């Protein structure tokens, strides 16, 4: 099982812990990763401005992966949505395909469709499988309530993105429950995090986020769980910014899914980057059942005896 890893722009610059934790988890599960240095922006942030620039940027990535004959694995839901959309366009729309390929030709590239674009979560769920992951889980959370945040651009438009049932998705819940945590039911689960409007209309962006945080908190969540750098930055950095401005007292920290899963696999906390989150998530360790704590105490006692 081998994929070209598509990181996009945000992760290497601002959410490095997502990359390191995802790599650690994938390695643990035996998923092989190939890095293509020439990958560029997925096109998503250009889409408001210029349709063709959006398609071109995305298609170049698809062409690069196609040249290596590898399917794409994205960590970002917005990258995922864009690449899926452009993959669809390049397959369905011949005149557009010709136009884009004429430009790509200058870089000796070409894309005619035929790749599979996958998200980290769908690779785990469909390609690796719940059973195989479960075998790698060495300790399970107990009493931890997680609010799963699906992310708009993974779920919709469902005909294009083919992620999961857009109305009643369950893939993420199942992956979260593997870790022993309880995936709670919450009304705002499928709503937007507000990130697409940050910097454009902050007030609205934060209002959308706050609505989610409030609902998550009221539904009994201890943590949010996400698998997208935009959502993570919104729930982490922007929530912190909001707390600092004291717009809200509702604090609901967000953990990236590979961090959550990695912990139950016993992966080391440096590669999971637990300290790199803006809102601390180390408290999640207390949801691991007692035996370990007892062991530690025993160790300490032994040391003291010595």
């Amino acid at each position, binding site marked *: 099982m081998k994929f070209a890893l598509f990181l996009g722009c945000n992760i290497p610059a601002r959410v490095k812990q997502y990359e390191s934790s995802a790599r650690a988890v994938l390695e643990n599960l035996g998923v092989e990763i190939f890095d293509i240095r020439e990958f560029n922006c997925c096109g*998503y*942030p250009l*889409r408001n401005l*210029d349709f063709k620039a959006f398609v071109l940027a995305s298609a170049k990535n698809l062409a690069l992966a196609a040249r290596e004959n590898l399917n794409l694995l994205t960590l970002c839901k917005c990258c995922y949505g864009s690449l899926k959309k452009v993959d669809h366009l390049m397959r369905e729309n011949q005149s557009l395909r010709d136009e884009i390929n004429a430009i790509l030709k200058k870089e000796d590239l070409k894309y005619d469709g035929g790749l599979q674009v996958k998200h980290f979560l769908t690779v785990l769920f469909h390609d690796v499988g719940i059973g195989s992951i479960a075998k790698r889980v060495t300790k399970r959370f107990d009493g931890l309530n997680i609010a799963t945040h699906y992310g708009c651009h993974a779920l919709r438009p469902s005909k294009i993105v083919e992620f999961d049932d857009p109305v009643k998705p369950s893939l993420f819940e199942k992956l979260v429950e593997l870790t022993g945590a309880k995936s709670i039911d919450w009304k705002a689960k499928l709503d*937007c995090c507000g990130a697409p409007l940050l*910097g454009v209309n902050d007030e609205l962006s934060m209002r959308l986020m706050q609505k989610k945080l409030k609902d998550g908190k009221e539904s009994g969540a201890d943590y949010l769980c996400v698998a997208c750098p935009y959502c993570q930055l919104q729930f982490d950095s922007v929530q912190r910014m909001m707390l600092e401005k004291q717009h809200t007292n509702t604090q609901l920290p967000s953990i990236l899914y590979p961090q959550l899963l990695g912990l139950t696999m016993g992966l080391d906390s440096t590669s999971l980057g637990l300290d790199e989150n803006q809102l601390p998530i180390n408290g999640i360790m207390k949801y691991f059942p007692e035996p370990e704590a007892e062991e530690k105490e025993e160790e300490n006692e032994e040391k003291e005896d010595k």
Partner: protein
Amino acid sequence: MFFNVTLYIVLTIFGVGLIYKVSTWFRYNIGIVARDISTGERFAAAIKGVFSTFFSSRILTLLRVFLVDVLLQMRTLKEDGLRWIMHMLIYWGFMLLLLMHALDKFITSVLFPDYQPTINPFLTLRDLFGAMVIAGIGIAIYRRFIMKVPRLKTNSMDCYAIGIVAVIIISGICLQATKIVSYSSYQSMVEEYTTMPEEDELKALEAYWVQEMGMVSPTTKGPFNKELLEAGKEAFEMSCAECHAREQSAFLSYGLSRIIKPLALGLDSAKIPILLWYIHFLACFIGLAYLPFSKMFHIIVSPLSILANAVMDDETSDQANIATKQIMDLDACTHCGTCTTRCSVAIAFEEFQNINILPSEKLIAIKSLARGKELSPDELKLLQEGAYICTNCYRCTVACPVGINLQSIWFSVREGLLEKGYPELSVLSQLSFYRGLMQRKIVADEYREPLQEAREAISEKCELMKAKEKPINVTTASKKLRSELSLSSQASTFSVCFACETCTTVCPVVASYENPQEALGMLPHQIMNACALGVRDLAFGSNMLWDCVTCYQCQEQCPQGVAVTDVLYELKNLAIKSVKLTLATK
């Protein structure tokens, strides 16, 4: 005399140029960093920064970085092996020539008291270093002019840099080659260095030089008999060998001398060696005098930038020093194009055709801006757009071989440009996400203003939105809008909308407002109607377009299969394109 006078003039120009350029590091300012800090304060901060770094453990960092990134240039190797070979060849070849050959009076003679340029190993080394530079230049020319890397731009300064180095080295090698074959050079050597009264001995020596050293004599020609050559060899060893190795050691110039051998006498009588000597020295002098103003200035500044970059960062360093480093960084740029090759959005240049999207070119425009050059409003708008079309992925900064903190420059310049008040429509895209994250670094009013200006620039062009009572005329213009909405096949689906309002009902943005119409203008289903009617102003002029969070709820739930979000995307594209045109021609 001529030589010395010229040298002093050149050194003066170089020195004054150097002082002038360094002074600009403290005087110039780009963007919003440390605008209120005076030149004096910046100078003081720099001195303080340098001293506090030298007398701290960070000196070890500097030493390591100097070895790894300045001398071995590992940052370049990480990017591109071929370019590393190219630059190492030119850098080391040229530096060693400079130290061993050009500054031989001050360095080589001091280190090696027996030094003569004509003995080995110096004679061989000189050609070896020259060969390294020529090989490097060959790769540079191949990369710039033959390889055709997409979006790698080559400007006149790049050509100058390659040209001046090439002229210096090639003229030096030609000079040496013509001297090898030159009879008059031989004669002056004999006059100066030998004390041979015997006609026979002189003849033997000349025969030896013709046979063994490649000299071409108008009178003495081979083949020579063994005895004569033996005698010549003896004379050579007696009078010359001590300070003149065999010419073959200078393998490049000797090789060249074999090629020009048939023309030797003509070249000599035309005094070509003297001409080449002038070319060689003048090229060196021009290169030196012009150095502070040319790309070659990077020889001095790039190591400084690399070192400063290793011990500075945006968060903890003195803002005065960051402003100074930003200007210094502009001089450190070698226009190598690494940033552009690694840029995440460089591909967008193919569509926008704005050269300022490419980091390496953006930096050149910023240099003009820093120098205080008056840019026309159109130039400023293009630079502003180029600075905005950036995903802030830091790849340029991570990759830059000379350690320029490009990201920090982009941020500062971008905000500085936005303050000038030209509406930048790109702020209404998701590229603004980074700006939102960084807002604590921007004055609150300056943060909000560009967003308002962009919206106003668009709504200004949509008169119908303002005059709600005005009857709407559905005529020719209407067809145009409808036909334009066809970029992706989804966008034309608006025509099957039957106004059930599901899109508006499920929209989280609409749900966020008590009086959505007041805040958003047209709501999603109304915009679909405006499209069907082809009323441009109503379709473009609503806040709804720019406040759409692109969550696709509307599109997912539309019973008619209208691709509502996709239509909104395309309307945004069209609105930006048409308003941008009117802004440019204003």
